[in-house]
């Protein structure tokens, strides 16, 4: 099974500027100066040795995460701008890997950054596609509104795929496409919903756009149980701890510190930092990742390390 990250940025799709790219190229030249660059292999090795913030980028597409068992239809969390790339890749896999034209979506909430990719989701124009959309909100109304005139030239009904919208029950495990899915309501403006997926003996939790009130022990305990023993948790780590409980309190997001603490309490194996602050550049996100790893070391309750990955657009994790 693979977890693919098609969009990892929070709040707003964020493009790299020409100045940023030039800065990266200058850093590459400086940091590879004097290295062996005589062959393609040597050049690739020299690049591989550089920090990710220099040789790569975390990307700027907004939330879209796929859980892929490599067969059948597709499972997708959220429809942020990363959905466009996912749609193109899904069509490629349907053409080359005998995959089904069936898509099950799980929507955290209907803020723009989590649905803005849908008008550009090409498979939705295919009458043979079957889309099943699960969410705690009325997602159909949100998509209709998003594509209504004068906001967008193509109305939802012009996308001729079969569409089924379901408001999922809370806190009670349900069976969807061989998965056991548990939905949890989260604290966010207008609410958001986290999803716990259980399949093939693995547990994946997608919990983004959620603010965890540290004074509310009952809710904290419930969220710990929601994430209990997960193999992988995708967690909103948008702000610093100080910001999240001061100037950005009630903005509906969480921090790397709370992510690690809750994962420790829940005996999670692998934390994926997600929903990156749009004003952060790659160097800041990398620093945040490194500091999160260090915090985990400092607070680790036993001898087993919590694996921590910082999501980027295009990341694949084998599970």
């Amino acid at each position, binding site marked *: 099974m693979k977890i693919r990250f098609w969009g990892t940025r929070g709040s707003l799709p964020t493009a790299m500027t020409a100045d940023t790219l030039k800065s990266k190229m200058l850093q590459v030249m400086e940091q590879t100066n004097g290295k062996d660059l005589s062959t393609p292999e040597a050049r690739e090795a020299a690049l591989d040795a550089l920090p990710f913030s220099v040789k790569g980028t975390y990307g700027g597409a907004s939330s879209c995460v796929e859980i892929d068992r490599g067969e059948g239809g597709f499972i997708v969390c959220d429809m942020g701008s990363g959905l466009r790339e996912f749609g193109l890749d899904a069509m490629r896999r349907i053409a080359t890997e005998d995959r089904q034209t069936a898509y099950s979506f799980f929507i955290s909430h209907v803020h723009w950054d989590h649905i803005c990719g849908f008008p550009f989701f090409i498979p939705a124009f295919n009458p043979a596609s079957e889309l099943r959309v699960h969410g705690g909100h009325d997602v159909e109304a949100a998509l209709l509104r998003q594509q209504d005139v004068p906001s967008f030239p193509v109305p939802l009904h012009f996308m001729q795929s079969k569409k089924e919208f379901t408001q999922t029950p809370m806190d009670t495990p349900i069976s969807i496409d061989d998965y056991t899915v548990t939905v949890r309501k989260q604290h966010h403006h207008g609410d958001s919903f986290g999803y716990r997926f259980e399949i093939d003996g693995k547990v994946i939790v997608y919990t983004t756009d959620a603010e965890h009130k*540290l*004074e509310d*022990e009952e809710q*904290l305990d419930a969220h710990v149980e929601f994430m209990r023993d997960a193999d992988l948790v995708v967690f909103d780590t948008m702000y*610093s*701890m*100080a*910001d999240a*409980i*001061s100037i950005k309190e009630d903005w509906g997001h969480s*921090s*790397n*510190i*709370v992510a690690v*603490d809750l994962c420790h*309490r829940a005996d999670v194996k692998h934390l994926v930092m997600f929903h990156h602050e749009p004003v952060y550049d790659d160097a800041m996100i990398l620093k945040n990742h490194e*500091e*999160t790893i*260090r*915090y985990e070391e*400092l*607070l680790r309750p036993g001898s087993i390390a919590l694996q921590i990955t910082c999501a980027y657009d295009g990341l694949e994790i084998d599970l």
Partner: protein
Amino acid sequence: MQVSTDVRDNGVVVSASGSIDHSSAAAFEEAAVPAVKLAVDAAGLLVVDLSDVDYMSSVGLRVLMLLAKAGKVDTVAVVISGLQPALQEIFQISHFDKIFKIYGSTEEALASGAA
């Protein structure tokens, strides 16, 4: 985790020891928050002495933020003293080093408040 409160000439000192995590943060909050009013009455600053605290998780940091907010309302300066290296790192990672003035010792903190 143990907490004590000491009223000094220049302010009030709350001293904690041990680990402050989800099992002890409530006790820390219960003991520390009333100290803000004591500092108001003493017309001094509130020093949170963490020199005997080996680690602090998010719920402990939240209590410190409560003290900072209460201090802002009551115009009492809330400062930190005596951070061990691990706690210094936690403050830096959480950006709490941008919220609080941090002093090497309680005496240094009290002296700064008197200046």
